[in-house]
């Protein structure tokens, strides 16, 4: 059919120039490219650790929701597997409802609490970048056991460091319950040694 051919030719031709402009005055306008990182503020680290595991930060940074919607959203995310302790929920809601609120502008940069100094601690950096802290806290069980609990269990076992290195690298389940620990095969020996050394000191 001629019209179809014509349309196909038109579509091919339009490949040469790509227009991102959309005219949608009947609809809300698209926002500018959202930031890949959360705004600094109280509990930004906790919010990042709990949220920016399963999805990137733009899901938050492009959103402006009411407090009620943020509360609702956290409950939905928990059903989708969000790792969060009950006492952390109000902290994360408070952060989101302060900095990404449709009705109230975020505190200006000058009024924001002083940003924490960049973390130079190699252990904290390792735990963060490998998302260990999504499932493990120091002093309590989240999805997996707390680091102190792990240190206590392996205390006094001569081959504990080797066992832990293997556990982190290979993953597994059964020691602490049915929830499996995923493997982390990309981790090098040096990093594993640093991590395990630190864990064993958490008593």
């Amino acid at each position, binding site marked *: 059919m001629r019209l179809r051919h014509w349309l196909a030719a038109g579509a091919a031709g339009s490949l040469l120039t790509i227009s991102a402009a959309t005219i949608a005055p009947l609809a809300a306008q698209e926002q500018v490219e*959202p930031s890949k990182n959360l705004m600094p503020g109280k509990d930004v680290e906790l919010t990042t650790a709990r949220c920016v595991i399963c999805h990137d930060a733009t899901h938050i940074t492009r959103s402006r*929701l009411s407090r009620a919607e943020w509360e*609702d*959203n956290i409950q939905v995310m928990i059903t*989708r597997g969000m790792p969060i302790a009950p006492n952390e929920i109000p902290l994360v809601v408070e952060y989101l409802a302060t900095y990404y609120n449709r009705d109230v502008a975020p505190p200006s940069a000058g009024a924001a609490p002083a940003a*924490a100094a960049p*973390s130079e601690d190699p252990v*904290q950096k390792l735990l963060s970048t490998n998302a260990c802290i999504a499932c493990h806290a120091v002093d309590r069980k989240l*999805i997996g056991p707390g680091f102190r609990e792990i240190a206590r269990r392996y205390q006094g076992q001569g081959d504990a460091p080797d066992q832990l290195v293997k556990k982190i690298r290979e993953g597994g389940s059964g020691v602490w319950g049915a929830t499996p620990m995923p493997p982390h095969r*990309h981790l090098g020996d040096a990093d594993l040694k640093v991590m395990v050394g630190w864990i064993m000191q958490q008593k």
Partner: protein
Amino acid sequence: MSETINDQSVQEGRVSRRGFIARVAGAGAVVASGAGLPEFALAQGAPKPPADPAGVIPNDQVMAGKDAALKIHSERPLTASATAEYLADDITPTNRVFVRNNLFTTQFDEATHMVEIKGLVDKQLKLNVADLRKNFQPVSTMAMIECAGAGRTGFNPVPRGTPWPPTGGMSCPKWNGVRLSDVLRTAGVKSGAVHVAFTGADFGALPTIPKVARSVPLWKAMEEHSMIVYGMNDGPLPVIHGAPIRVMIPGWAGSASVKWVASIEVLDAPLKGPYMDSSYRMPKHPVPPGSKMPADAASTEGWPIKSIITNPAPNATFKQGKPVLVAGHAWVAEADIDRVEVSFDEGRTWQNAQLNAKAAKYAWQTFSYAYNPRGPGYVTVLARATDSNGNMQPIVTPWNPLGYYWNGLHRVGFTVEA
């Protein structure tokens, strides 16, 4: 009435280069056109998302198989779509079919990846692609697949979720596979069956993340266009679209069309789980913008009447003296298109567009109209479709908490030069 269109009498128009977005060749990264907020958090040593686990196909590899017209909306989970001006084809080419993951893009072995047919059936089945090809009649159909949140940014305020553009997140490819009903009949559906649940084998970043799982009423699962799919547009099914095997529930919110399907379970009630009870829900009655999801809500099903204008492209320019081709698609899940009207005066008056025949029950229908410019200047065109039950597209879709079923009128502006 619309005029007859022939190749010589209509103009294609030039597309403005304003708002040009370049994609780094091969890398799949989108270069932002607007200024983003400063990147504070990393400088503070905030945690970064963990690296993709083994068995996951990285986004740049997925996007290398896609047309440059696809814009990435989020990197984890990966979502991307092309807007109306790139969707003129009757059959959406595979490289322009939109991308929507809930979890990772996971690669499974074609021989060992099985789908289990279980639940209220006389005999359980365990099938791989080869079993499906060998034991069931192959079928193909063009059908709409559309994310429940397609067009979400049309709502005001914009609800949470993937920021689909007003005309992004829908595709109409040709699907190759077998009828879901043939497979269910072979297994033997027992009395008392009400819903059929599909569960994907894909996985998320943490072991505690639930699998993607949705159920549909038995009648929809048994409808002859519902399929287990292993091919797209007579070619292989790309991994990003659920290879080796996926479900395709035509015309319904895309989440029902579970990718990488591992289990098809016949149930005596709708499935319970996060993808049924907290996501993919619509209030039964409209709620004020900004509300929480009310208790009185239902799971998403078929898409309501909708249309998009694929030509002209936004901001195209035309020479005076020749008709301008206006064209697009209209679709609705469980009805037929009665008519598509177009308006060039912001909805004061409407003209019937010419409607092509529907290629398949759940395919979109192409409409066209030859517009004769009255003189030079800026022109806008609105399209409005009505289905066989008398349901007409609204000017603006009523707001709902998760931003589903956007079907407000699409409006495109273009310029006629003297």
